[in-house]
């Protein structure tokens, strides 16, 4: 989603003004972009390192909100608000709901640690390196003209999404639909199992799963 958004925004502008821009005289927007990016990165690192489960979810709000501000700075207003709506408004609320329903102690959770931490670190560093490499390589000479017409306005985003990217868009819709149907099937099956063998353990399991 995020990569596609960046690609959309960049593709829509197709500015070829590279060459007139340098890295040594940053504009105010570029400085703000960098600072917000640092805050977002910091919040993301705290999210995965903190020992307090609910704090991790709340730091995730900061990280996702920072990402929305980055979109705003790139004039992609629509993407920014959708980011807040979907991720902060729904995904994090769902996360908190799940945490509160299962376990959300106040203070540290010593068992909230994984023996896979080094593997996880390696995978995430590799993924980040690959993403940074690909994005930098793809958009090295592309600059978004922030002063002209907004490159990420709803109209531009919509047009580019439903003209250039309509096939991936539809494919993603089908994927989401499949996931939705799958979730319904799984939950119905669990309920049928619980009805067949009405032991207390099973029932508690299904209620937790729901």
């Amino acid at each position, binding site marked *: 989603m995020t990569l596609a958004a960046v690609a959309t925004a960049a593709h829509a502008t197709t500015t070829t003004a590279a060459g007139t821009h340098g890295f040594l005289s940053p504009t105010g927007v570029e400085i703000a972009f960098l600072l917000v990016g640092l805050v977002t990165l910091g919040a993301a690192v705290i999210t995965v390192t903190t020992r307090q489960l609910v704090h991790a979810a709340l730091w995730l709000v900061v990280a996702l909100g920072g990402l929305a501000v980055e979109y705003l700075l790139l004039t992609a207003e*629509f993407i920014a*608000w959708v980011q807040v*709506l979907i991720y902060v408004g*729904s995904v994090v609320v769902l996360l908190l*709901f799940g945490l*509160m329903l299962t376990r959300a102690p106040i203070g540290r959770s010593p068992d909230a640690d994984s023996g896979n931490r080094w593997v996880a670190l390696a995978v995430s560093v590799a993924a980040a390196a690959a993403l940074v490499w690909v994005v930098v390589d793809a958009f090295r000479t592309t600059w978004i003209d922030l002063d002209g017409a907004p490159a990420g306005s*709803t109209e531009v985003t919509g047009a580019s999404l439903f003209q250039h990217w309509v096939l991936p868009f539809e494919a993603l819709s089908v994927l989401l639909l499949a996931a939705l149907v799958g979730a319904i099937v799984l939950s119905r099956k669990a309920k049928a199992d619980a009805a067949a063998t009405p032991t207390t353990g099973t029932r508690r399991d299904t209620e937790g799963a729901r």
Partner: protein
Amino acid sequence: MNDALDVALRLLVVFVVFLTFPLIVGQTEHKVMAHMQGRLGPMYAGGFHGWAQLIADGVKFAQKEDVVPAGADRRIFQLAPAVALLPYLLVLLAIPIGPGEGAVGQVLDAGVFFVLAVMGVGVLGSLMAGWASANKFSLLGGLRTAAQLLAYELPMLLTAASVAMAAGTVSLVGILDAFEWWWLPWQITGALVFFVAGLAELQRPPFDMPVADSEIIFGAYTEYTGLRFALFLLAEYAGIVVLCGLTTVLFLGGWHGPWGADGLGWVWTLLKTAVLAFVVIWLRVTYPRLREDQLQKLSWTLLVPLSLAQIALTGIVKVVIR
């Protein structure tokens, strides 16, 4: 210089509206509820029909001790009221009150998405409060809040999308510019669904399961005292103002009216918002609280299908009249 002054003036106006309108709604609730129940309501504070009752309440709240429970997560407990209240201030910035670009705090390209996104963030405040209080009742309240938001966010979004489809824009100002009177019957299902879902998102009766006093004391706000508690109450009433304003703008034509659209558009907006706020109070007095399962059922089996049907209807009409 002139631009800066203009921006400052707009922010000031929005801030004043944010501070006064919720209080007016609150005072109206006191009086309307009282008269509907054969009482007089507040009569002493301020002299004339108790007009200063909420100011007196505010002074009382400010004098109370600010208690943080010993087992609570201090920082999140203290941060929660701000997270609950500030989003509504931001939403007010984007609601156009009259025609033209002069009558809105800030013209936003994707206004509909902005208001819905930011209103959803406000619920995080209740969740934080419910968790950080270290109280079973608070945690249950937080859980119910989250479940309710997840259920009612969807119909709200779908019906708002229906209006955006009808207008061909997601800008609140643009929607009002495109408004025609016959949108009213066309979008009436969407309007009802939006309003009901909005009530549920604000946790107003009959959807006040998360603060059900007979079951879980006061839900997520049980442990709050003094000014922080007052901030939560203020957030609820600011939410009423925002919801009624949004319903007015999206479905009732905002500043459009039978006459006087040029100079008096803002009067129409305020009038419609006030009538809707009265309906919110009326519903509180009239209906008993829904049970949690009834709440979920209402959303998933009635509001979501209705809003999907509204979107289908909008699409069909849109294609036919083209």
